[in-house]
Protein backbone atom coordinates (compact mmCIF):
# COMPACT_ATOMS: atom_id res chain seq x y z
CA UNK A 1 0.00 0.00 0.00
CA UNK A 2 1.24 3.47 -0.85
CA UNK A 3 2.38 5.36 2.27
CA UNK A 4 0.05 8.31 1.59
CA UNK A 5 -2.96 5.96 1.76
CA UNK A 6 -2.10 4.52 5.19
CA UNK A 7 -3.49 7.39 7.32
CA UNK A 8 -6.80 7.04 5.52
CA UNK A 9 -7.21 3.47 6.78
CA UNK A 10 -7.02 4.91 10.29
CA UNK A 11 -9.54 7.64 9.36
CA UNK A 12 -12.01 5.04 8.05
CA UNK A 13 -11.56 2.81 11.10
CA UNK A 14 -12.10 5.72 13.49
CA UNK A 15 -15.16 6.87 11.50
CA UNK A 16 -16.58 3.32 11.63
CA UNK A 17 -16.04 2.98 15.37
CA UNK A 18 -17.45 6.45 16.17
CA UNK A 19 -20.46 5.75 13.94
CA UNK A 20 -21.02 2.42 15.71
CA UNK A 21 -21.07 4.16 19.09
CA UNK A 22 -23.43 6.88 17.83
CA UNK A 23 -25.76 4.33 16.21
CA UNK A 24 -25.74 2.20 19.36
CA UNK A 25 -26.43 5.06 21.76
CA UNK A 26 -28.91 7.12 19.69
CA UNK A 27 -30.39 4.38 17.51
CA UNK A 28 -33.99 5.03 18.49
CA UNK A 29 -33.68 8.80 18.14
CA UNK A 30 -32.01 8.57 14.73
CA UNK A 31 -34.62 6.11 13.48
CA UNK A 32 -37.41 8.35 14.77
CA UNK A 33 -35.81 11.39 13.13
CA UNK A 34 -35.63 9.75 9.70
CA UNK A 35 -39.04 8.12 10.02
CA UNK A 36 -40.88 11.28 11.06
CA UNK A 37 -39.23 13.74 8.64
CA UNK A 38 -39.47 12.18 5.18
CA UNK A 39 -39.16 8.52 4.28
CA UNK A 40 -38.34 9.35 0.65
CA UNK A 41 -35.75 11.89 1.76
CA UNK A 42 -34.21 9.31 4.09
CA UNK A 43 -33.90 6.79 1.24
CA UNK A 44 -32.38 9.36 -1.13
CA UNK A 45 -30.01 10.46 1.62
CA UNK A 46 -29.16 6.80 2.33
CA UNK A 47 -28.28 6.18 -1.33
CA UNK A 48 -26.61 9.53 -2.03
CA UNK A 49 -24.27 9.75 0.96
CA UNK A 50 -22.19 6.65 0.15
CA UNK A 51 -21.99 7.76 -3.48
CA UNK A 52 -20.65 11.16 -2.41
CA UNK A 53 -18.16 9.43 -0.13
CA UNK A 54 -16.93 7.27 -3.01
CA UNK A 55 -16.53 10.08 -5.54
CA UNK A 56 -14.80 12.38 -3.04
CA UNK A 57 -12.24 9.70 -2.13
CA UNK A 58 -8.69 11.08 -1.92
CA UNK A 59 -6.75 11.42 -5.17
CA UNK A 60 -3.02 11.68 -4.63
CA UNK A 61 -1.18 13.92 -7.03
CA UNK A 62 2.59 14.02 -7.16
CA UNK A 63 4.38 17.35 -7.61
CA UNK A 64 8.14 16.93 -7.63
CA UNK A 65 8.89 14.66 -4.68
CA UNK A 66 5.81 15.67 -2.73
CA UNK A 67 2.38 14.13 -2.80
CA UNK A 68 -0.72 16.27 -2.39
CA UNK A 69 -4.26 15.15 -1.78
CA UNK A 70 -7.12 16.28 -3.93
CA UNK A 71 -10.81 15.42 -4.03
CA UNK A 72 -11.12 12.44 -6.37
CA UNK A 73 -13.88 13.59 -8.69
CA UNK A 74 -12.46 17.12 -9.04
CA UNK A 75 -8.92 15.86 -9.58
CA UNK A 76 -10.22 13.42 -12.23
CA UNK A 77 -11.89 16.24 -14.15
CA UNK A 78 -8.80 18.42 -13.77
CA UNK A 79 -6.20 15.82 -14.73
CA UNK A 80 -8.23 13.74 -17.18
CA UNK A 81 -9.76 10.26 -16.93
CA UNK A 82 -13.08 11.46 -15.56
CA UNK A 83 -15.15 8.79 -17.36
CA UNK A 84 -13.04 5.91 -16.02
CA UNK A 85 -13.19 7.42 -12.54
CA UNK A 86 -16.97 7.75 -12.74
CA UNK A 87 -17.44 4.16 -13.93
CA UNK A 88 -15.20 2.77 -11.18
CA UNK A 89 -17.06 4.86 -8.61
CA UNK A 90 -20.41 3.65 -9.91
CA UNK A 91 -19.29 0.02 -9.69
CA UNK A 92 -18.01 0.50 -6.13
CA UNK A 93 -21.23 2.25 -5.12
CA UNK A 94 -23.46 -0.47 -6.59
CA UNK A 95 -21.34 -3.12 -4.84
CA UNK A 96 -21.55 -1.31 -1.50
CA UNK A 97 -25.28 -0.70 -1.82
CA UNK A 98 -25.95 -4.36 -2.71
CA UNK A 99 -23.96 -5.46 0.33
CA UNK A 100 -25.74 -3.09 2.74
CA UNK A 101 -29.17 -3.76 1.23
CA UNK A 102 -28.62 -7.50 1.46
CA UNK A 103 -27.61 -7.15 5.08
CA UNK A 104 -30.69 -5.05 5.81
CA UNK A 105 -33.03 -7.51 4.11
CA UNK A 106 -31.53 -10.46 5.98
CA UNK A 107 -31.73 -8.80 9.40
CA UNK A 108 -35.21 -7.40 8.70
CA UNK A 109 -36.59 -10.79 7.61
CA UNK A 110 -35.01 -12.42 10.64
CA UNK A 111 -37.06 -10.07 12.79
CA UNK A 112 -34.19 -7.88 13.91
CA UNK A 113 -35.86 -4.57 13.06
CA UNK A 114 -33.84 -2.63 15.59
CA UNK A 115 -30.65 -4.15 14.24
CA UNK A 116 -31.61 -3.28 10.65
CA UNK A 117 -32.29 0.31 11.76
CA UNK A 118 -28.94 0.37 13.55
CA UNK A 119 -27.14 -0.75 10.38
CA UNK A 120 -28.77 1.95 8.27
CA UNK A 121 -28.08 4.55 10.98
CA UNK A 122 -24.46 3.41 11.06
CA UNK A 123 -24.25 3.93 7.30
CA UNK A 124 -25.66 7.49 7.67
CA UNK A 125 -23.27 8.48 10.44
CA UNK A 126 -20.13 6.77 9.09
CA UNK A 127 -20.72 8.20 5.60
CA UNK A 128 -21.20 11.71 7.01
CA UNK A 129 -17.96 11.54 9.00
CA UNK A 130 -15.94 10.16 6.08
CA UNK A 131 -17.46 12.70 3.66
CA UNK A 132 -16.42 15.47 6.00
CA UNK A 133 -12.87 14.05 6.20
CA UNK A 134 -12.71 13.78 2.40
CA UNK A 135 -13.58 17.43 1.82
CA UNK A 136 -11.24 18.88 4.46
CA UNK A 137 -8.79 20.88 2.31
CA UNK A 138 -5.17 19.90 1.86
CA UNK A 139 -2.35 22.21 0.77
CA UNK A 140 -3.56 21.84 -2.82
CA UNK A 141 -1.88 20.27 -5.80
CA UNK A 142 -0.65 21.34 -9.18
CA UNK A 143 -2.97 20.39 -12.00
CA UNK A 144 -1.95 19.89 -15.62
CA UNK A 145 -0.55 22.87 -17.53
CA UNK A 146 -3.08 25.17 -19.18
CA UNK A 147 -2.59 26.15 -22.85
CA UNK A 148 0.03 28.89 -23.18
CA UNK A 149 -0.76 32.58 -23.25
CA UNK A 150 1.14 35.36 -24.99
CA UNK A 151 1.23 38.98 -23.93
CA UNK A 152 2.67 41.45 -26.42
CA UNK A 153 4.42 44.41 -24.81
CA UNK A 154 4.73 47.61 -26.75
CA UNK A 155 5.52 51.23 -25.99
CA UNK A 156 7.60 54.21 -27.00
CA UNK A 157 11.41 53.95 -26.85
CA UNK A 158 12.58 54.20 -23.24
CA UNK A 159 9.16 53.53 -21.79
CA UNK A 160 10.35 50.43 -19.98
CA UNK A 161 9.20 47.49 -22.11
CA UNK A 162 12.27 45.31 -21.55
CA UNK A 163 12.46 46.26 -17.88
CA UNK A 164 8.82 45.27 -17.43
CA UNK A 165 9.45 41.88 -19.06
CA UNK A 166 12.66 41.29 -17.11
CA UNK A 167 11.60 42.31 -13.62
CA UNK A 168 8.07 40.88 -13.56
CA UNK A 169 9.29 37.87 -11.58
CA UNK A 170 10.68 40.11 -8.85
CA UNK A 171 7.42 41.83 -7.98
CA UNK A 172 6.62 40.92 -4.40
CA UNK A 173 4.63 44.07 -3.60
CA UNK A 174 1.46 43.68 -5.63
CA UNK A 175 -1.54 42.62 -3.63
CA UNK A 176 -1.94 39.59 -5.94
CA UNK A 177 1.29 38.21 -4.49
CA UNK A 178 -0.63 36.30 -1.83
CA UNK A 179 -2.65 34.34 -4.34
CA UNK A 180 -0.59 34.29 -7.55
CA UNK A 181 2.91 33.00 -8.22
CA UNK A 182 5.03 34.05 -11.15
CA UNK A 183 8.21 32.10 -11.83
CA UNK A 184 10.60 32.81 -14.69
CA UNK A 185 12.31 30.20 -16.82
CA UNK A 186 16.07 29.71 -16.57
CA UNK A 187 16.56 31.87 -19.70
CA UNK A 188 14.46 34.67 -18.27
CA UNK A 189 16.47 34.69 -15.03
CA UNK A 190 19.47 35.54 -17.22
CA UNK A 191 17.56 38.52 -18.63
CA UNK A 192 16.62 39.63 -15.11
CA UNK A 193 20.19 39.20 -13.92
CA UNK A 194 21.48 41.24 -16.86
CA UNK A 195 19.14 44.08 -15.91
CA UNK A 196 20.33 44.07 -12.33
CA UNK A 197 23.21 46.40 -11.68
CA UNK A 198 22.96 48.22 -14.97
CA UNK A 199 22.44 51.91 -14.27
CA UNK A 200 19.85 52.37 -16.97
CA UNK A 201 18.48 48.83 -16.67
CA UNK A 202 18.17 48.40 -20.39
CA UNK A 203 20.76 48.74 -23.00
CA UNK A 204 18.92 50.26 -25.96
CA UNK A 205 18.88 47.05 -27.90
CA UNK A 206 17.68 46.74 -31.43
CA UNK A 207 16.54 43.20 -30.64
CA UNK A 208 13.14 42.77 -29.16
CA UNK A 209 13.33 40.59 -26.04
CA UNK A 210 10.96 38.04 -24.70
CA UNK A 211 10.50 36.53 -21.28
CA UNK A 212 8.90 33.22 -20.41
CA UNK A 213 7.13 32.71 -17.10
CA UNK A 214 4.80 30.28 -15.42
CA UNK A 215 1.94 32.05 -13.70
CA UNK A 216 -0.25 30.17 -11.24
CA UNK A 217 -3.43 31.54 -9.70
CA UNK A 218 -4.04 29.98 -6.28
CA UNK A 219 -7.72 30.49 -5.60
CA UNK A 220 -9.71 29.45 -2.54
CA UNK A 221 -11.04 26.42 -4.40
CA UNK A 222 -7.53 25.41 -5.55
CA UNK A 223 -7.25 23.45 -2.30
CA UNK A 224 -9.89 21.12 -3.69
CA UNK A 225 -9.37 21.17 -7.43
CA UNK A 226 -5.68 22.09 -7.67
CA UNK A 227 -3.92 25.08 -9.18
CA UNK A 228 -3.44 25.21 -12.92
CA UNK A 229 -0.13 26.73 -14.12
CA UNK A 230 -0.23 28.85 -17.24
CA UNK A 231 2.88 29.20 -19.43
CA UNK A 232 3.07 32.91 -20.14
CA UNK A 233 5.29 34.51 -22.79
CA UNK A 234 5.91 38.24 -22.65
CA UNK A 235 7.00 39.31 -26.11
CA UNK A 236 8.33 42.77 -26.78
CA UNK A 237 6.98 44.40 -29.89
CA UNK A 238 9.92 46.57 -30.90
CA UNK A 239 9.98 50.23 -31.71
CA UNK A 240 10.19 49.74 -35.43
CA UNK A 241 9.51 46.09 -35.81
CA UNK A 242 6.95 43.65 -34.54
CA UNK A 243 9.26 41.47 -32.53
CA UNK A 244 9.03 37.71 -32.60
CA UNK A 245 5.47 37.06 -33.67
CA UNK A 246 4.05 33.84 -32.28
CA UNK A 247 1.41 31.49 -33.51
CA UNK A 248 -1.86 33.10 -32.50
CA UNK A 249 -3.62 30.70 -30.15
CA UNK A 250 -6.32 33.20 -29.36
CA UNK A 251 -4.96 33.46 -25.83
CA UNK A 252 -3.24 36.80 -26.17
CA UNK A 253 -3.28 40.14 -24.41
CA UNK A 254 -1.47 43.42 -24.81
CA UNK A 255 0.53 45.81 -22.69
CA UNK A 256 1.37 49.36 -23.66
CA UNK A 257 4.04 50.94 -21.50
CA UNK A 258 4.17 54.68 -20.99
CA UNK A 259 6.44 56.73 -18.77
CA UNK A 260 4.24 58.19 -16.05
CA UNK A 261 5.63 61.70 -16.51
CA UNK A 262 4.59 61.71 -20.17
CA UNK A 263 1.03 60.53 -19.63
CA UNK A 264 -0.48 63.91 -20.43
CA UNK A 265 1.77 65.15 -23.23
CA UNK A 266 0.59 65.61 -26.83
CA UNK A 267 3.53 63.59 -28.19
CA UNK A 268 2.68 60.62 -26.02
CA UNK A 269 -0.90 60.66 -27.28
CA UNK A 270 0.37 60.39 -30.85
CA UNK A 271 2.76 57.60 -29.83
CA UNK A 272 -0.03 55.70 -28.09
CA UNK A 273 -2.20 56.11 -31.18
CA UNK A 274 0.59 54.45 -33.19
CA UNK A 275 0.92 51.64 -30.66
CA UNK A 276 -2.81 51.04 -30.74
CA UNK A 277 -2.87 50.84 -34.53
CA UNK A 278 -0.06 48.26 -34.30
CA UNK A 279 -2.13 46.29 -31.79
CA UNK A 280 -5.09 46.41 -34.17
CA UNK A 281 -2.92 44.59 -36.72
CA UNK A 282 -1.61 42.11 -34.16
CA UNK A 283 -5.14 41.41 -32.90
CA UNK A 284 -6.42 41.02 -36.44
CA UNK A 285 -9.02 43.73 -35.90
CA UNK A 286 -8.05 46.63 -38.15
CA UNK A 287 -11.48 48.28 -38.15
CA UNK A 288 -13.27 47.25 -34.98
CA UNK A 289 -12.26 47.76 -31.37
CA UNK A 290 -9.62 45.37 -30.00
CA UNK A 291 -11.41 42.54 -28.21
CA UNK A 292 -8.32 41.22 -26.42
CA UNK A 293 -7.54 42.85 -23.05
CA UNK A 294 -5.14 45.77 -23.14
CA UNK A 295 -3.24 47.03 -20.09
CA UNK A 296 -1.83 50.53 -20.08
CA UNK A 297 1.15 50.46 -17.72
CA UNK A 298 2.50 53.73 -16.38
CA UNK A 299 6.14 53.03 -15.65
CA UNK A 300 8.77 54.79 -13.57
CA UNK A 301 6.18 56.03 -11.08
CA UNK A 302 7.40 57.59 -7.85
CA UNK A 303 4.31 56.82 -5.84
CA UNK A 304 3.39 53.30 -6.80
CA UNK A 305 -0.02 52.17 -5.69
CA UNK A 306 -1.47 48.74 -6.11
CA UNK A 307 -4.43 48.17 -8.41
CA UNK A 308 -5.96 50.43 -11.04
CA UNK A 309 -4.21 53.66 -11.95
CA UNK A 310 -6.98 55.09 -14.11
CA UNK A 311 -7.01 58.28 -12.05
CA UNK A 312 -3.47 58.98 -13.30
CA UNK A 313 -4.61 58.85 -16.93
CA UNK A 314 -5.76 62.02 -18.69
CA UNK A 315 -9.28 62.22 -20.11
CA UNK A 316 -7.93 62.38 -23.66
CA UNK A 317 -5.87 59.25 -23.19
CA UNK A 318 -8.76 57.41 -21.56
CA UNK A 319 -11.01 58.44 -24.47
CA UNK A 320 -8.44 57.14 -26.93
CA UNK A 321 -8.36 53.75 -25.19
CA UNK A 322 -12.16 53.64 -24.99
CA UNK A 323 -12.32 54.21 -28.75
CA UNK A 324 -9.81 51.47 -29.58
CA UNK A 325 -10.20 48.80 -26.89
CA UNK A 326 -13.20 46.95 -25.56
CA UNK A 327 -11.44 45.95 -22.34
CA UNK A 328 -8.63 48.05 -20.96
CA UNK A 329 -7.25 48.96 -17.60
CA UNK A 330 -4.50 51.29 -16.39
CA UNK A 331 -1.83 50.19 -13.94
CA UNK A 332 1.33 51.63 -12.48
CA UNK A 333 4.58 49.71 -12.18
CA UNK A 334 8.11 50.48 -11.15
CA UNK A 335 11.44 48.73 -10.87
CA UNK A 336 12.89 51.36 -8.55
CA UNK A 337 10.48 51.29 -5.65
CA UNK A 338 11.32 53.58 -2.75
CA UNK A 339 11.07 51.91 0.62
CA UNK A 340 11.23 53.70 3.95
CA UNK A 341 11.87 56.88 1.95
CA UNK A 342 14.98 55.39 0.35
CA UNK A 343 15.52 54.70 -3.33
CA UNK A 344 17.26 51.40 -4.19
CA UNK A 345 21.01 51.34 -4.69
CA UNK A 346 22.25 52.25 -8.15
CA UNK A 347 20.97 49.64 -10.57
CA UNK A 348 19.25 47.54 -7.91
CA UNK A 349 15.90 46.09 -8.94
CA UNK A 350 13.02 46.56 -6.55
CA UNK A 351 9.93 45.81 -8.61
CA UNK A 352 6.29 46.52 -7.90
CA UNK A 353 3.07 46.41 -9.88
CA UNK A 354 3.98 43.99 -12.68
CA UNK A 355 2.14 41.04 -11.17
CA UNK A 356 -1.10 43.05 -10.89
CA UNK A 357 -0.94 43.72 -14.63
CA UNK A 358 -0.28 40.10 -15.55
CA UNK A 359 -2.88 38.71 -13.14
CA UNK A 360 -5.50 41.04 -14.66
CA UNK A 361 -4.51 40.06 -18.20
CA UNK A 362 -4.50 36.32 -17.48
CA UNK A 363 -7.91 36.59 -15.81
CA UNK A 364 -9.35 38.52 -18.77
CA UNK A 365 -7.71 36.33 -21.43
Amino acid sequence: MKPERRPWIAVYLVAGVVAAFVAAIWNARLTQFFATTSATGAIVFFLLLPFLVIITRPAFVRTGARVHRGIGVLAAFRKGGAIGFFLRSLAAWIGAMLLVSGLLVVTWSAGGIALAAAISNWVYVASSIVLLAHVVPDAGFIAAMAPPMTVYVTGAPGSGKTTFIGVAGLDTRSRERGSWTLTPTEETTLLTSSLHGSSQHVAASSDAVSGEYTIVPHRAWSQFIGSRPVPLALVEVGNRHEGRRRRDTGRTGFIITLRAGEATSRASLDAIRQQLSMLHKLAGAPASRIARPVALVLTCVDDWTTGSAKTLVSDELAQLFDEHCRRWEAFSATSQLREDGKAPEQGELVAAGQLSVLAWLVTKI
Partner: protein
Amino acid sequence: MIGMWGSRRAGKTTFVSALYHEIRRRKEEESDIWKMVGQTDAANELLLRDWERFRSSNFPETTPSDVVAQPLIYEVTRPVGDEPKTTTPARSWSGSLRKMSEWLIRAGADRETITLNLFDPSGEFFSQPNRLIQDDPVATQCRNMLRSSDGLLCFIDPTRSDDNEYFPLIFRNCVLLSKLLNEEAGGSLPVPVAIVVTKADQFPEAFRDPRAFLRSTMGRAAFGALMDYCERREFFAVSSVGTGNVEGKGTDFKPLDQPEPEGVWAPIAWLLDAMNGRL
Protein backbone atom coordinates in the same frame (compact mmCIF):
# COMPACT_ATOMS: atom_id res chain seq x y z
CA MET B 1 16.55 14.36 3.95
CA ILE B 2 18.07 17.79 4.52
CA GLY B 3 19.72 19.32 1.47
CA MET B 4 22.69 21.60 2.11
CA TRP B 5 22.92 24.41 -0.39
CA GLY B 6 25.54 27.12 -0.68
CA SER B 7 28.54 28.34 -2.62
CA ARG B 8 32.02 26.81 -2.57
CA ARG B 9 33.83 27.51 0.69
CA ALA B 10 30.59 28.61 2.33
CA GLY B 11 31.30 26.02 5.02
CA LYS B 12 28.85 23.20 4.32
CA THR B 13 31.20 20.27 5.02
CA THR B 14 32.79 22.16 7.91
CA PHE B 15 29.28 22.59 9.30
CA VAL B 16 28.82 18.79 9.50
CA SER B 17 32.15 18.39 11.30
CA ALA B 18 31.24 21.29 13.60
CA LEU B 19 27.89 19.65 14.32
CA TYR B 20 29.66 16.49 15.44
CA HIS B 21 32.06 18.56 17.53
CA GLU B 22 29.15 20.43 19.10
CA ILE B 23 27.32 17.21 19.98
CA ARG B 24 30.47 15.78 21.56
CA ARG B 25 30.87 18.99 23.57
CA ARG B 26 27.25 18.77 24.73
CA LYS B 27 27.79 15.14 25.71
CA GLU B 28 30.75 16.13 27.87
CA GLU B 29 29.32 19.29 29.35
CA GLU B 30 25.54 18.89 29.43
CA SER B 31 24.30 15.32 29.28
CA ASP B 32 25.75 12.00 28.20
CA ILE B 33 22.53 11.34 26.28
CA TRP B 34 23.86 13.42 23.37
CA LYS B 35 25.22 11.17 20.63
CA MET B 36 25.88 11.36 16.88
CA VAL B 37 26.70 8.10 15.10
CA GLY B 38 27.30 7.65 11.37
CA GLN B 39 24.97 5.15 9.67
CA THR B 40 26.63 4.93 6.25
CA ASP B 41 30.19 4.59 4.99
CA ALA B 42 30.15 8.12 3.61
CA ALA B 43 28.95 9.51 6.93
CA ASN B 44 31.58 7.62 8.93
CA GLU B 45 34.31 8.50 6.48
CA LEU B 46 33.49 12.18 6.82
CA LEU B 47 33.61 11.96 10.59
CA LEU B 48 36.92 10.11 10.57
CA ARG B 49 38.68 12.18 7.93
CA ASP B 50 37.24 15.66 8.11
CA TRP B 51 36.54 15.81 11.79
CA GLU B 52 40.13 14.73 12.52
CA ARG B 53 41.35 17.49 10.23
CA PHE B 54 38.99 19.91 11.87
CA ARG B 55 40.13 18.92 15.36
CA SER B 56 43.76 19.36 14.37
CA SER B 57 43.01 22.96 13.32
CA ASN B 58 42.49 22.39 9.61
CA PHE B 59 39.32 22.99 7.68
CA PRO B 60 37.88 19.96 5.85
CA GLU B 61 38.63 19.64 2.14
CA THR B 62 36.05 21.14 -0.22
CA THR B 63 33.60 18.64 -1.69
CA PRO B 64 34.72 17.68 -5.21
CA SER B 65 32.32 18.51 -8.02
CA ASP B 66 33.11 15.43 -10.13
CA VAL B 67 32.18 12.78 -7.57
CA VAL B 68 28.63 11.59 -6.98
CA ALA B 69 27.79 12.79 -3.46
CA GLN B 70 26.30 10.20 -1.14
CA PRO B 71 23.80 11.05 1.58
CA LEU B 72 25.32 11.43 5.03
CA ILE B 73 23.08 9.55 7.44
CA TYR B 74 23.59 9.99 11.18
CA GLU B 75 21.66 8.87 14.19
CA VAL B 76 21.48 11.72 16.66
CA THR B 77 20.24 11.17 20.19
CA ARG B 78 19.24 14.23 22.16
CA PRO B 79 17.60 14.75 25.55
CA VAL B 80 13.87 15.33 25.44
CA GLY B 81 13.06 18.96 26.10
CA ASP B 82 16.09 20.20 24.23
CA GLU B 83 13.98 21.63 21.41
CA PRO B 84 14.76 25.31 20.91
CA LYS B 85 12.10 27.74 22.11
CA THR B 86 10.56 29.27 19.07
CA THR B 87 8.25 32.22 18.64
CA THR B 88 6.80 30.70 15.47
CA PRO B 89 3.21 29.70 16.20
CA ALA B 90 1.87 26.29 15.19
CA ARG B 91 0.87 26.49 11.53
CA SER B 92 -2.48 24.81 11.90
CA TRP B 93 -4.74 23.00 14.29
CA SER B 94 -3.45 19.70 12.88
CA GLY B 95 0.12 20.85 13.68
CA SER B 96 -0.94 21.56 17.26
CA LEU B 97 -2.66 18.19 17.45
CA ARG B 98 0.47 16.44 16.20
CA LYS B 99 2.59 18.38 18.68
CA MET B 100 0.31 17.30 21.50
CA SER B 101 0.30 13.63 20.42
CA GLU B 102 4.09 13.64 20.17
CA TRP B 103 4.29 15.15 23.62
CA LEU B 104 2.05 12.38 24.94
CA ILE B 105 4.08 9.68 23.18
CA ARG B 106 7.33 11.07 24.50
CA ALA B 107 6.02 11.69 28.02
CA GLY B 108 8.27 9.85 30.39
CA ALA B 109 11.06 9.33 27.86
CA ASP B 110 14.31 11.11 28.60
CA ARG B 111 15.80 10.93 25.09
CA GLU B 112 14.83 11.15 21.48
CA THR B 113 16.70 9.52 18.60
CA ILE B 114 16.55 11.22 15.24
CA THR B 115 17.84 10.04 11.89
CA LEU B 116 19.64 12.95 10.32
CA ASN B 117 19.99 12.51 6.58
CA LEU B 118 22.18 15.24 5.13
CA PHE B 119 23.09 15.82 1.53
CA ASP B 120 26.28 17.81 0.98
CA PRO B 121 26.75 18.58 -2.73
CA SER B 122 29.66 20.51 -4.19
CA GLY B 123 29.26 24.27 -3.94
CA GLU B 124 29.98 24.47 -7.65
CA PHE B 125 26.34 23.62 -8.33
CA PHE B 126 25.34 26.73 -6.41
CA SER B 127 28.05 29.00 -7.82
CA GLN B 128 27.39 27.90 -11.40
CA PRO B 129 23.67 27.11 -11.61
CA ASN B 130 24.10 25.97 -15.23
CA ARG B 131 26.10 23.04 -13.89
CA LEU B 132 23.06 21.70 -12.02
CA ILE B 133 20.93 21.35 -15.14
CA GLN B 134 23.58 19.42 -17.05
CA ASP B 135 22.99 15.81 -17.95
CA ASP B 136 25.81 14.02 -16.13
CA PRO B 137 25.60 11.51 -13.25
CA VAL B 138 26.87 13.97 -10.60
CA ALA B 139 24.39 16.69 -11.55
CA THR B 140 21.57 14.14 -11.90
CA GLN B 141 22.27 12.76 -8.43
CA CYS B 142 22.38 16.30 -7.04
CA ARG B 143 19.04 17.17 -8.66
CA ASN B 144 17.42 13.96 -7.37
CA MET B 145 18.68 14.55 -3.85
CA LEU B 146 17.54 18.16 -3.78
CA ARG B 147 14.19 17.18 -5.27
CA SER B 148 13.56 14.70 -2.48
CA SER B 149 14.75 17.01 0.29
CA ASP B 150 12.26 17.66 3.08
CA GLY B 151 14.16 20.69 4.29
CA LEU B 152 17.03 22.87 3.13
CA LEU B 153 20.00 24.41 4.84
CA CYS B 154 20.88 27.44 2.75
CA PHE B 155 24.37 28.67 3.56
CA ILE B 156 25.19 32.31 2.85
CA ASP B 157 28.87 33.18 3.02
CA PRO B 158 29.32 36.86 3.92
CA THR B 159 33.06 36.67 3.13
CA ARG B 160 32.71 35.78 -0.57
CA SER B 161 36.00 36.35 -2.30
CA ASP B 162 34.49 37.36 -5.66
CA ASP B 163 33.11 40.85 -6.09
CA ASN B 164 29.97 39.66 -7.81
CA GLU B 165 26.58 40.75 -6.62
CA TYR B 166 24.51 38.31 -4.57
CA PHE B 167 21.36 38.92 -6.59
CA PRO B 168 22.04 37.01 -9.83
CA LEU B 169 23.27 33.98 -7.92
CA ILE B 170 20.54 33.92 -5.30
CA PHE B 171 17.77 34.62 -7.81
CA ARG B 172 18.85 31.93 -10.27
CA ASN B 173 19.35 29.38 -7.49
CA CYS B 174 15.95 30.13 -6.00
CA VAL B 175 14.27 29.71 -9.40
CA LEU B 176 16.18 26.48 -10.07
CA LEU B 177 15.27 25.00 -6.70
CA SER B 178 11.69 26.08 -7.17
CA LYS B 179 11.52 24.27 -10.52
CA LEU B 180 13.15 21.19 -9.02
CA LEU B 181 10.80 20.97 -6.08
CA ASN B 182 7.60 22.30 -7.64
CA GLU B 183 8.21 21.23 -11.22
CA GLU B 184 7.07 23.67 -13.89
CA ALA B 185 4.62 25.47 -11.62
CA GLY B 186 7.46 27.14 -9.70
CA GLY B 187 6.53 29.39 -6.79
CA SER B 188 7.82 29.35 -3.26
CA LEU B 189 9.72 26.30 -2.04
CA PRO B 190 7.42 23.71 -0.46
CA VAL B 191 9.94 22.80 2.24
CA PRO B 192 11.25 24.70 5.28
CA VAL B 193 14.51 26.53 4.70
CA ALA B 194 17.02 27.40 7.41
CA ILE B 195 18.95 30.39 6.07
CA VAL B 196 22.34 30.22 7.71
CA VAL B 197 24.93 32.98 7.79
CA THR B 198 28.24 31.16 8.03
CA LYS B 199 31.55 32.46 9.41
CA ALA B 200 29.57 34.69 11.75
CA ASP B 201 32.55 34.85 14.11
CA GLN B 202 33.84 37.59 11.80
CA PHE B 203 30.53 39.49 11.98
CA PRO B 204 29.25 39.70 15.58
CA GLU B 205 26.18 41.66 14.41
CA ALA B 206 25.08 38.54 12.49
CA PHE B 207 24.63 36.70 15.80
CA ARG B 208 22.47 39.53 17.14
CA ASP B 209 20.12 39.73 14.14
CA PRO B 210 21.00 37.40 11.22
CA ARG B 211 18.02 38.62 9.19
CA ALA B 212 18.97 42.30 9.38
CA PHE B 213 22.60 41.41 8.75
CA LEU B 214 21.72 39.47 5.60
CA ARG B 215 19.43 42.22 4.34
CA SER B 216 22.21 44.78 4.51
CA THR B 217 24.90 42.40 3.22
CA MET B 218 22.99 40.97 0.26
CA GLY B 219 21.04 44.05 -0.82
CA ARG B 220 17.29 44.44 -1.14
CA ALA B 221 16.90 42.60 -4.45
CA ALA B 222 18.76 39.44 -3.40
CA PHE B 223 17.20 39.44 0.05
CA GLY B 224 13.76 39.99 -1.50
CA ALA B 225 14.23 36.99 -3.82
CA LEU B 226 15.31 34.82 -0.89
CA MET B 227 12.29 35.89 1.16
CA ASP B 228 9.97 35.42 -1.78
CA TYR B 229 10.99 31.86 -2.55
CA CYS B 230 11.63 30.67 1.01
CA GLU B 231 8.18 30.99 2.52
CA ARG B 232 8.83 28.78 5.57
CA ARG B 233 12.15 30.10 6.75
CA GLU B 234 14.18 31.02 9.78
CA PHE B 235 17.46 32.89 9.96
CA PHE B 236 20.50 31.66 11.83
CA ALA B 237 24.10 32.72 12.30
CA VAL B 238 26.74 30.07 12.88
CA SER B 239 30.45 29.85 13.40
CA SER B 240 32.04 26.46 12.98
CA VAL B 241 35.28 27.44 14.72
CA GLY B 242 34.19 30.02 17.26
CA THR B 243 34.81 33.73 17.71
CA GLY B 244 38.44 34.88 17.43
CA ASN B 245 39.59 31.41 16.49
CA VAL B 246 40.58 31.81 12.86
CA GLU B 247 43.54 33.28 11.02
CA GLY B 248 44.38 33.82 7.38
CA LYS B 249 43.87 36.01 4.36
CA GLY B 250 41.85 35.84 1.18
CA THR B 251 40.49 32.35 0.84
CA ASP B 252 43.18 30.67 2.90
CA PHE B 253 41.84 30.44 6.44
CA LYS B 254 42.86 28.13 9.26
CA PRO B 255 41.52 27.63 12.77
CA LEU B 256 43.92 28.92 15.42
CA ASP B 257 42.99 26.41 18.05
CA GLN B 258 40.52 23.63 18.83
CA PRO B 259 37.18 24.61 17.28
CA GLU B 260 34.43 25.92 19.51
CA PRO B 261 31.36 25.92 17.24
CA GLU B 262 28.63 28.46 17.89
CA GLY B 263 24.99 28.07 16.92
CA VAL B 264 25.42 24.97 14.73
CA TRP B 265 22.71 22.86 16.36
CA ALA B 266 19.96 25.54 16.20
CA PRO B 267 19.29 25.39 12.43
CA ILE B 268 19.17 21.58 12.50
CA ALA B 269 16.83 21.55 15.50
CA TRP B 270 14.54 24.10 13.82
CA LEU B 271 14.51 22.19 10.55
CA LEU B 272 13.71 18.89 12.25
CA ASP B 273 10.78 20.50 14.04
CA ALA B 274 9.59 22.27 10.90
CA MET B 275 9.88 19.09 8.82
CA ASN B 276 7.93 17.12 11.42
CA GLY B 277 5.15 19.69 11.41
CA ARG B 278 5.86 20.78 14.97
CA LEU B 279 6.17 24.44 13.91
